[in-house]
Each structure stands twice: as C-alpha cells, then as structure tokens.
C-alpha cells in the first residue's frame, strides 16, 4: 500500500471538517482524531493509519487541502475556505442523502448506514444526487438529525415534475396523496391494508392526525394507529 493520499481521502477530510464546524469545533486535534479513527467505521483505506502514521497522515492531508486552496491552517485551528466549503457541501449532501435513501427505502437501521453511505458518496454524480433528493422529497435532515445541504433541485423543488415521496405521517392534514409503497414485512398487516384498498397507487386523503390518524380512501374513513401509518409512503399530488 502506498502512502499516497487519494481523492477519496481528500473528500473525507472535507466531510470531517464540515461536520466539525457544525459541532463548533475547528481544532487540529479533533480533526486528527476523526481522520485517523478506525472505530468511526470509515472504510478500508483508513486501515493503514497505524500509530506512527497518524500525525504524518494528518500533516499530508492538510498539506494537500492547503495546496488546493480548500482549507487554511492557523496555529491549531483549521478553517475551510469558501472553495473548500463548496466542495465539502457537495460531499456531505451526498452522504446524508445516501443515508436517507438507505434508511427510508432499504429498511436499514440508522446505525448501519454510516459505512455504506461513505462508499456511496463517492459514486454519485450531481445529476443522480439530485434525482435521489427529488425522489426522497428534498429531505431536510439525515436520519441522525443533521441538516442536509440543499442542492439545485431543492430550490426549484415545487416546480419539479417528478412527484416527491414522503412518509404519510409528513403529509399535511387535508392533503391528498397517492400511495407509493408500503414498507412492512408484516404480511397480515399488508393484506389487511390492501383489502381496505390501501396499497400502491391508491389515493388517500389525510383527514386528521390527532388523537388518531384518520385517512380517507374512496368513500371509506379509516382510523389507524401511528405505527401502521409510519409504514406508508406517498407521492404528494398537486
């Protein structure tokens, strides 16, 4: 293995700096710890950061960031430049959208998505990223509650032709939507919902959320518990 710093690692360094700034931290020590911490679940290419290398690697990464004008180092503080912010923003956006995708669509646990999201973020180009963003309904936060930087698609969000998919729980009272899919492994539940004509393609109207969810399909009003509603994802209609 060479000690060459790859683009992937630069990306990750940028991502780390962005998250640190969100936490209000800028010190070199935190950066070094995050960059070289295997436990955080970062991928293979971090394995070679063994004891002696830690400082060396940090130096090298910082040198590259500086050279490319992505970050500035002052004493013990590291600051992203505007250019660096722009680059980091794109990467963080991909990462967090990838997390959303995996949690909402692939039924993965919040804890399990960190590593695959990391792999994912290097594969997506801008167009694909924006399609995912649109598909997910321009989500504002990742599953861990961190903000997802907005993309081009988000500002033109309302005008997009592609309908957005959101959990039925996020629908406003009074709004109608078409069911995109129902996310459950519980067959009797699915069967029951289907027999009430709650299934992909059905149009539903959210009538109220409290004290119970009431939705309307056709001429039927149904009261359902939140746990079931959470399984239902819809495309908003307007």
């Amino acid at each position: 293995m060479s000690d060459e710093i790859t683009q992937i690692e630069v990306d990750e360094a940028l991502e780390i700096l962005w998250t640190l700034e969100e936490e209000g931290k800028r010190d070199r020590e935190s950066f070094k710890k995050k960059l070289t911490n295997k436990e955080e679940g970062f991928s293979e290419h971090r394995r070679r950061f063994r004891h002696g290398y830690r400082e060396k690697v940090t130096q090298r990464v910082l040198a590259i960031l500086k050279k490319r004008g992505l970050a500035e180092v002052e004493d013990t503080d590291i600051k992203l430049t505007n250019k660096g912010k722009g680059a980091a923003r794109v990467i963080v956006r991909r990462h967090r959208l990838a997390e959303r995708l995996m949690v909402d669509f692939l039924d993965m646990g919040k804890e399990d998505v960190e590593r695959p999201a990391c792999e994912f973020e290097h594969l997506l180009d801008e167009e694909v990223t924006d399609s995912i963003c649109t598909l997910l309904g321009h989500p504002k936060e990742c599953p861990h509650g961190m903000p997802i930087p907005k993309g081009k698609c988000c500002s033109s969000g309302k005008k997009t032709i592609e309908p957005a998919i959101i959990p039925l729980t996020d629908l406003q009272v009074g709004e109608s939507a078409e069911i995109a899919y129902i996310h459950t492994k519980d067959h009797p539940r699915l069967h029951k919902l289907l027999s009430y004509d709650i299934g992909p393609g059905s149009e539903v109207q959210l009538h109220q959320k409290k004290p119970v969810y009431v939705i309307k399909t056709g001429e039927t009003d149904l009261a359902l518990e939140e746990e079931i509603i959470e399984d239902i994802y819809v495309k908003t209609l307007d």
Partner: protein
Amino acid sequence: MKIRYAREALGIEEDEDVSVLIGNPNVGKSVIFSSLTGKYRDVSNYPGTTVEVSKGKTKIGTKRETIIDTPGAESLTPVSEDEKVTRDILLGTEPNQVIQVADAKNLKRSMMLLLQIAEFDIPMVLDLNMMDEAKARLVDIDIDGLKEELNIPIFPTVAPERRGTSALKRGINKARVPDIKPDYPDEIEDAIDELKDLFGSRGTALLFLAAPNEMKEFIEEKMGSEEREIAEDVLGRLYKTFSQDLSYLITLSIREKAENIFSKFVSKKEIERTTLKKKINDLTMDPWTGIPIFFGVIFLLYQFVGYIGAQVIVDFLEGIIFGEYINPYIEDLVYSSIGENFVSTILVGEYGVITVGVTWAIALILPIITTFFLAFSLLEDVGYIPRLAAMADRGLRKVGLNGKAVLPMVLGFGCDTMATLTTRVLDTKKERIIGTTMLALGIPCSAQLGVLFAIMATLPFYFFFVWAGIVSSQLLFVAWSASKILPGKRGDFIIELPPLRVPKWDNVLKKTYYRVVMFFKELVPLFILGTFLISVGKITGVLDFLIKALEPLVVTWLGLPAEASIAFILGFLRRDFGAAGLLDISVRMTNVQMLVAVVAITLFVPCVANMLVIIKERGIKTAMAIIGFIIPFAFFVAGIVNHLINLFGGLL
C-alpha cells in the same frame, strides 16, 4: 372448525336450497337478511368459535330457500376469525347461490371481494345496498354496464327503507355464474390450472396458494398423500419463481382488476358540499370535541349500565321481587316438601343454587347484560362504536392493548364476568390475557363499587383518593408490566369509521335480543355451578378451613381483625358480599384498617363466576397463572400499605 361439516354444523339438510349472504363488514347484510327472511331467524355461534351466524328461511315463488348471513369479510383469505367463518361457510355449505351485499359508495372494496367469490363458479347476484348514501355523496354507478361486465343480475337497494328488497328477493332465482377474472401472473395462472381439479375449484386453489396454512384442514379432509404432494410441489415451484409473498401478488392482481372495473363504471361528481352530517361526523373525531364526546358517551354508558341496570333495576329485582316474594316462597316450598337436609341446603341454603345462583343470574346478570347490549347495539347502529375505540386507542396502547379493548374495560365496571367474555373481541392472545387480568385484578364491578362507596362514606373523604390512587396505579403497573413481559404481539389497530346514522330501532332491539339470549345462555350455568361449588365447600368444611387458613395472614400481615378473613372468602362468592362483609365489621376497625381492607378486597380474587369464565375462555393453565398472581399480589400490596402507614404513623 371442520369445513366439511358446515352444513351439518348449521343444521342444514343436504337437499336444502341454500343462499349465502356475503359482504364486507357493515354493508347492511343483517338488514337485508331480515327483509329476505322476515321474522324467523336462528342465531347461533359457529361451532368452535364465538362468531355469530344467523340462519333463516323464506319462500321465493313456490321454492323454499334457506338463507345464511355470514360475518362481514374484507377478503376470503382470512385474517380474522370472522373471515375464517365466512370462508368455511362458503366452502363447506356448497351454496346454491351467493348473494353478495355491497356498499354502493364503496364499490371498489366490494369488487375485490366479488372477484374472489367469482372464482368459485357459484351463481351470484349482487345487491348494491346503501344507494341513498351513494347518491348523497354524488357517487354515480353505471349499473347496466356493470351487469354486462360481471354477467350477473344486480339489484340496487336501500335496506332499512325496504327499497328494492322485494326485487332482490325475486331475483335470487336468476343468479348466474359471474364471468370475470383478474389477470394473475402467468405462473400463478398455470398453478391454478394444475390445482383446480384437485381442490374442486379455482377459488379454493387460490385460497391455498395465498395462504396454505389456512387450508390445512381442508387438505387433510379432502386429499390423499399423493395429491397433497402435487399441491406442495406446485407451491414450491411458485416460491422459487417469486421473491414476493404469493398472497400479496394475488391480492395485487385482484386489486388491479377491481380498480379497473371501478374506474369504468363508477364516477363521482367532484364538488361535494360539506353537509351537516359530515360536520357531525368530524366533531366526533376532532380532538377538541371528540374527547369530551368520548367521555360523555362513556359516562352515559356507565350511568345506564352501571347505575340504572346494575343498581336500580337490580335492587328492585333482587331485593323486592326475589328477596320478598320468590325466594321466601321457594324456601318454604323446599323445606316443607323435603325438610332440612343436604339437598335443601344445596338448593335454598345460605349459598343455594336457587336462592343465590338463579337469583343472581336473573336479578343481577340479566339487567346488566340487557342494559349493556341495548346501549351497545344502539351505539353500534349509530356507528359510534368504532369511533369510541379510535378515541381510546392511544391510551390503551400504553398498557399493551388497543382501542378495541375499550368496551370490555368499561363493561367491567358493570360486571367483570360478562366483560371477561367480551375480551373475545381482542385480536391476540396476549391482549386477551392482559385484558382478563386487568378485569380480574382491579376493576370493581358495579355491585362491589356500590358497597365500596358506602364504606368510603364512613371514612374521611381523602381516603377515597388514596384508595383510587393505589388501585389504579397498581392496575396500570401490572398491565404495563404484562405488556412488556408477555411474549407475542398487540394487534394492529385499523378500523373503519362508518358514517353516523339515525338508529333503526327494530334493528337495535333485534340485535339486543339475540345477544342477550346468547350471553345469558352462556353465563347462567356458570353462576349456578359457582354457587353449587360454594355450597359444597360450605358443607364439606372447605370454606371454614380456608377462612381459618387465611386468618394468620389477615391478622399479622394486614393488621386486621380475624373476622375480616370471612369477608375475603365471601368476596370470592360474590365481590359485593365481600365488601358488605367488611361493612358489617367496620365498627371494630380503625380508619387505616378499613383502608387496608378495602384495598385488599378490591384487588383480591374475582368472584367464582368470573373465575369460571376465565378458565373457560383462557384455559385452566392461564387461568391458574392469573389467579396465582392476583391473590398474593393483592395481599402484598395491601400489606405494604399497612406497614407503610404504621411506619410513618399517623400519616393519615
């Protein structure tokens, strides 16, 4: 429930011409059934289940016709016990025709059910009921087009007004085999082809593919081992082909077809006015108005059942009719004819089968179940029951139940024995156990509550809150713990909210009548058996032995006078007797002792009849576990109260 015996089980001869009424829940089948059959009907539980099935006879022209009303079903691939019964009746009675009742304003769901029935090659007619509501909601149905598409006769009706019902009745003879099929995936279609002769029809083959486990009994009854293997092979092949659940794929195909029919023949004019009716509907569900309405209904329900039924009418029947007239007369009669001996003690002694058991059943239980079912049937006919359940869902979920448990819990304050029977409406075994335990542990029935209130009146007023606080906190704590500890799941809460309607009194009264008769028949033997057991206990000395055995515990741990142990044992006979026993010795007790005694007797064992119902409904093992928990727990809690108060002496 053996499918093959469906005719026999329902008392139908092989050569009778049978029409089966099938429909989604709440579409008006019962009303249609009444208008087809007139007065005569025979309601019974389907063998091996708790599901009501009505049977009636009618004449069409000169032909005699037997009509069976099935429980409402969303689908023939059963999820609920109701749906299982409907499926078994369809499979087992081999009806000459099926009358499907549909809710005209909800035709898509009815079409999904129709497409499943159509696969059985049985002649059908379709009744489009609730035409009035469809019209009010501007739902427009092209009936002629639909007739042609389905190839069966269709009759629009408004059942309660008897509009269209005589045409429907005359039309039963014109039933035809529908000619409509969903487009299943090719592999499934092939599988149906291979299996349809084995199973007797496409419909049965489909039921097998969608839920093989549900068809075990059918297969065992009808197939040899070779045929079973073929069926398993076909199924195995499909499992390899599709990654999705087969029942899901089948339902999707059915749904697509239903959707297709629906969009072709049903249209809705867009603008719908917000009518007054709709506003009232919304008010019952809106948190600001719905919750007060909910508590108002619960309050009225309790006033009607717990006060008018369980106190006013009971006092009159038990105290005056039975107490002053009937029982003295019967006692005289028995003693003068057979003298004082074992038999007369059993019949009319202190815990006599007649003077206590029968009196209890008629004077106490009958008024309670009559008022309850009258209120219940009325609320049901109005369409409020599902709303009641929906409003209570959130709260009941915290203790491992869901909204459906609201009625058993409210009814418990009337009569725990009766309420335990109604825990049948709960979906899962776990919920039924939690519900039963709550009823047995800490929900005092109205009779007991009456005496408890009388005791409370002799104590400083804040004792009431201490008592209520202890009992309700223990009740919630136990239910909550049980929901965490017991294995299994809580049932999903999905419930349809029918529009509120003006009640039809004849429908309400009929339903009340059949339910009272059914429950009464079930309960009376238990009460008689209960008093019989107590009498035997008395005669053999077991009762005295128990009272003596309990004494040390009562004296040392609870700090009560020894006589209090009699009250606890009496409470086992009837919960209010126990409380009354305490009232009798209250002069000899301090206020704190009274509090401890009242807490213990509230939590202590359910009455003997309730216990028998628990055994009957939950099985002996579960019943023993529940009782085995409650007895020590009640004494434990009451003892702790006693010791705490003594420790912090003079706290109260």
